[in-house]
């Protein structure tokens, strides 16, 4: 696959503050690449560095074979959607969108056609002649999106482009973006705080924290095989439970004890001692209290939140520890109630075992190789 963007050892300071810290990422041509991370972790900063609005303090950025450290922003052939929209307040919606095409001296006829296409895509055709000040927040955001996409840039940078849209429209738009991106083979770097969105649209995802990349991988790799506790916890939610490893044999088979229950597991190295056992709420299976089994734990429902598609239960064990479990809300009147007793299957096959500090994965879990 052709390499398009190569980010090597890039750092950027604000005063003392290292906003991004020694970033190394390679992005392929046509790839849909997402930056994911908590607020303030440096996503915008990295994006702006790629766009050429910040100059990195260390490191190099290549576009293809070209070192672009010193290429000014307007020559980088990028489309950018800004987190704060940055709509031209003095131009109408239509003029905002045609702006980049005019700059490229695209002929009038084509400007019309392509603007129309972009407007249709963001469902703003009827507002074409409005002034930006007369738009709602989401409408403004869509103008920003259309404006960046319409120029069919070589690299599309999007900073939370859908944050102000409703779920419905967001899903539609992200599918449209994805489709356009694929059909035009535009390399795309996408910043979002919405992990579901990231998982749905990305070819690969980089999870960031405090300016550093934590893990880069395909969506299911990140979700199912997080490389540390932070990633496991940030993408989706995870139950972390204290456990103990013991009885490692020559083949690295061992026993992990969690909440007094023992599971067999296969380790990557010979280790023993305290560990973090992590299992996602949707992998925690709730069974009728009547069921029995070696690996089943008894618990009590202490909270239930209805989220539409699913229900989140908080289950308290006899130890006093509480974990979450997600169940599809097939029937509302079949919901469990607070106080109900249940049996819990901690699903050791899907669990990831970290060392005590959460920095390292200890067990093998092959379930991601599909």
């Amino acid at each position: 696959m052709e390499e398009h963007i190569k980010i090597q050892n890039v750092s950027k300071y604000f005063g003392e503050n290292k906003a991004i810290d020694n970033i190394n990422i390679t992005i392929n041509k046509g790839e849909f690449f997402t930056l994911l991370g908590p607020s303030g972790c440096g996503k915008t900063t990295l994006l702006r560095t790629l766009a050429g609005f910040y100059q990195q303090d260390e490191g190099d950025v290549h576009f293809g074979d070209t070192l672009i450290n010193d290429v000014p922003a307007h020559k980088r052939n990028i489309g950018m959607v800004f987190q704060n929209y940055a709509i031209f307040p003095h131009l109408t919606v239509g003029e905002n969108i045609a702006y980049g095409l005019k700059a490229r001296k695209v002929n009038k006829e084509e400007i019309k056609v392509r603007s129309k296409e972009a407007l249709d895509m963001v469902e703003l055709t009827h507002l074409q002649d409005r002034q930006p000040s007369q738009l709602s927040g989401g409408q403004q955001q869509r103008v920003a999106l259309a404006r960046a996409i319409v120029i069919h840039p070589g690299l599309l940078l999007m900073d939370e482009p859908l944050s102000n849209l409703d779920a419905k429209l967001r899903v539609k738009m992200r599918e449209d973006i994805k489709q356009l991106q694929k059909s035009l083979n535009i390399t795309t770097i996408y910043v979002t705080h919405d992990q579901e969105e990231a998982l749905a649209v990305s070819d690969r995802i980089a999870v960031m924290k405090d300016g550093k990349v934590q893990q880069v991988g395909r969506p299911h790799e990140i979700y199912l095989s997080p490389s540390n506790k932070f990633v496991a916890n940030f993408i989706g939610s995870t139950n972390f439970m204290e456990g103990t490893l013991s009885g490692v044999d020559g083949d690295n088979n061992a026993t992990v004890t969690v909440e007094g229950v023992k599971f067999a597991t296969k380790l990557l190295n010979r280790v023993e001692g305290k560990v973090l056992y992590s299992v996602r709420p949707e992998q925690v299976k709730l069974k009728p209290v009547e069921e029995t089994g070696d690996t089943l734990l008894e618990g009590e429902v202490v909270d239930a939140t209805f989220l539409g598609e699913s229900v989140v239960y908080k289950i308290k064990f006899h130890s006093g520890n509480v974990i979450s479990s997600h169940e599809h809300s097939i029937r509302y009147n079949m919901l469990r109630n607070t106080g109900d007793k249940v049996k819990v299957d901690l699903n050791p096959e899907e669990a990831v075992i970290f060392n005590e500090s959460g920095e390292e994965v200890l067990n093998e879990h092959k379930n991601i190789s599909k």
Partner: protein
Amino acid sequence: MSTRTLASRRNPFRQFDFWNYVTIAAFILIAFFLIYPLFNIFLNSFWQDGKVSLENYQEFFSYKYYYSALLNSIIVSTAATFFACLLGIPVAYVMSRFNIPFKGFFHILIILTLLSPPFIGAYSWILMLGNNGFITNFFRDFGIDMPSIYGLHGMIWVFTLQFYPHIYLYVSGALKTIDVSLEEASASLGVSGFQRIRKVTLPLIFPTVSTGALMVFMASFADFGTPMLIGQGEKVLPILAYEQFISEMGSNPAMASTLSMILLAVTTTVLFVQRYVVTKKTYTMSALRPPKIIKLAGTKRVFATLFVTAVVALSIIPQATVITTSFLKTNGPVFAGGFSLDSYREVLYKVPQAITNTFMYASIAIVIMVFAGLLLSYVVVRRKSKITSLLDALIMIPYVIPGTVLGISLIIAFNKPPIELTGTWVILVIAYVIRKLPYTMRSSTAILHQIDKSVEEASISLGVPPMRTFFKTTAILMIPGVLSGAILSWVTTINELSSTIVLYYGATRTITVSIYSEVFTSNFGTAAALASILSLTTIISLIIINIISGKKDVTI
């Protein structure tokens, strides 16, 4: 900040773009048309009896006569600035936020206040509040002794009323670009009315307010017409400088230069302080939600209208005096009682050419100024560095050098080959641009501080190079703010006298020159007639500007 240093370490030429050329061009032009002409002055101040010395400075600080003038200047300018803010800000706020009737009319009157013809402005205050003034006598009849207009307080009074339009114009411009959601946020937190203005609105437009204040300070610090008339014993620095330069009895170039240097030192300091404070207190806002006019009802509206009317009426007194005077029957320097059009009849023959000249030169100058203001303010604000700060300071110099002095330096500089400009209109335009650019420049920088940079970045990211991006986005967004300064430049250019008087020749005579020659020969009737014609044509020009700029949300 580290961005800059480190980036330049990597590649010093990375930033070498359009704006660097603008900076270089600006320096070349300034060097040529400002530094070079004024060089003699600077040199002279250190030159005594054929050798370098600080004697003049010593003398300055050892004689009360000199340093008390400096003190007076500072007192007068500071006080005038303070009171001008006190008048200008509320008027601007009320005018731009509330549904005041006759807004356009008031607006024109306020601008007209700036058009105080040479000496006539202060003179009309003498007519009102002098020892034998109309109002003084009125109160004296009731046994109330009014303090006389003469002295520092009189200067403060006149400066305040003459210069508050600076604040008014700058602040009005800024109030248009404020993001109202901030004011709304304040209201939602329970802070409204005056408190909100004090705690949110004012701090947000602080850069602009302080710029307006700077201009008032500079204007009062550099003016000598008013102190000359009502200062009497109380001298201020510009009078001393002016007198030293333009004495009928032969000048003392060394002392004159020293005075200019001190004048410059003070104003440059003030400028830098203002800039320093402003850079720390500058906030960008997206003007996506511009403010709307609030409809006041009943007594509140009456009250607001009364307030504006009172201020405007007070400040327009000099103009009113001028216009009335122009219709009085005069006999040489004496008013003979009764009305007539004689004054107009007398001046009419010289008016057409003078009007054409005035407006032609001013138009050329204003185009150059707006253009330069846009470009230079960008360099100064967005490419901030020691070099561009220096540029900013240099541009302000002409503002504080008496126009006559500047005019004379221009003559000396461009009076011989290779560049012979004396006697042409070009030298007038150069003088106008140099002298009046600070207004446009200041309002441009003020507005630019408020404009969100990401709009520009958006344009650049769409492939439009920085220069074109500037003209297609930021420049357009700046226009309302720039115009507030440009109007000041325009009106004061039309009104420019002190440099014109030494630079014009018969064919390049302007209206103000004509007015002046009437004033100093005490023909106040004809002077007033000319001044009225000047006011009228200025009003017309403002209306035309308004029509041309049309929908661009510019209330003249």
